[in-house]
């Protein structure tokens, strides 16, 4: 049976390694510095590619500005939120909205995603039945999206 102290020791080491990977700081002693840096780089690229793939409108709309904005978002949110690329994209959309960088198409893509799923610990959950979600347009006007059960019809008001 492992002791609590053993778990605590392992936790310290693991936290330092995760920190070094997601904040791109040097790893704990004994780790291969260059290889950890390489892994951190690939990790970031994987995260950004996965997000672009599952949020095609956001990716296409931001175009060449995507990488710069994504880096700023990641600096604020080094540890990805739950829900994989879907959850990451929802948080990215919120960040873009808060920084006044989200045109209406991006807001609509996020609103549409929120109608379909919720992201929580352990994975995604599908929303069912009649679903309603609210957001604001870039102009500040409110909009409401409603998803009807059966047939997948969606109504946008505003």
């Amino acid at each position, binding site marked *: 049976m492992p002791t609590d102290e053993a778990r605590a020791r392992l936790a310290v080491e*693991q936290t330092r390694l995760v920190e070094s990977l*997601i904040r791109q700081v040097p790893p704990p002693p004994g780790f291969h510095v260059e290889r950890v840096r*390489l892994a951190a780089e690939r990790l970031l690229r994987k995260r950004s590619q996965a997000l672009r793939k599952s949020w095609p409108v956001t990716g296409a709309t931001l175009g060449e500005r995507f990488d710069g904005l994504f880096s700023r978002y990641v600096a604020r949110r080094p540890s990805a939120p739950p829900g994989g690329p879907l959850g990451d994209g929802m948080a990215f959309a919120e960040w873009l909205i808060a920084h006044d960088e989200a045109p209406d198409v991006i807001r609509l893509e996020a609103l549409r995603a929120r109608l379909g799923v919720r992201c929580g610990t352990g*994975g995604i959950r599908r929303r069912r039945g009649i679903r309603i979600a609210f957001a604001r347009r870039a102009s500040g006007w409110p909009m409401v999206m409603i998803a009807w059960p059966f047939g997948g019809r969606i109504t946008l008001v505003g």
Partner: protein
Amino acid sequence: MSRSRPERPVPHEFNVPGPWSLGLGIGWRRDIALFIDRRDDLGFLEVMAEDIDPDAPLSPPIRRLVERGLVAIPHGVTLSLGGAERPDPKRLDRLARVAQRLGAPLVSEHIAFVRSDGLESGHLLPVPRTREALEILVENVRDAQARLPVPLALENIATLFEPPDAEMDEPAFIGELLERTGALLLLDIANVHANAVNHGFNAAGYLDRMPLERIAYVHVAGGSEHHGVYHDTHVHPIQPPVLDLLSELCRRVEVPGILWEHDDCFGPDADMSEELGRIQRAIERGRTDREHRDANR
């Protein structure tokens, strides 16, 4: 005379799927749903456990395949069994319900940790191969097994770096873990090659020391090599040494099944079929050699 109490199951008791009982498999991805549906020679699938909502009906393409009799195995990436914290019961219960929803005979996860102290790494990270970390891993795996309705298979991961101060090599570490928990082995043959290249060991020698009799199924995937570092990308074609290693494995045992993991840049159906063909030929080469050897014995 009192009857003796029924014996408690010994910890190393395990039931592996029979030889070639799963057959050829593929990791289910939405982009290739149609390709998978059209193949009539597949025996099993893996679905990303975190993408299945256990309380919602299965998505139609997956449901169709399950109804056709394909075995669907939930493959988890977020349990963090190698972590310092005990596995989250909520995550385990969710995985258990996903397995039930799919009617899966087993579930699979990784010998890795993915988070620490609430920080998500977004990656499968190597556990230090020390006695102390092994004790924790054993306890975590037992926690998981206690909450899962079906056997658990554990996968060897590919790493670019290793934690310092290892007290044993990977086959010894994994061997003892499986022996003590009764967990099955999901052997990723590309990851064996990856680590052999990246950490400088002999891949065939590694196979010699692994508990191959515990294999639930095998992963094979594409990757690329840059400046002497192998990257397990799941995007590139399967590298010839990986196929050779697969033959090497099939020379030793008849495995229950082999699953191709391919995550992106799918290309035309013909290319994907060719990739499955390369896997099948590699298996066949190893199998033929084994049968010759057995016949001449």
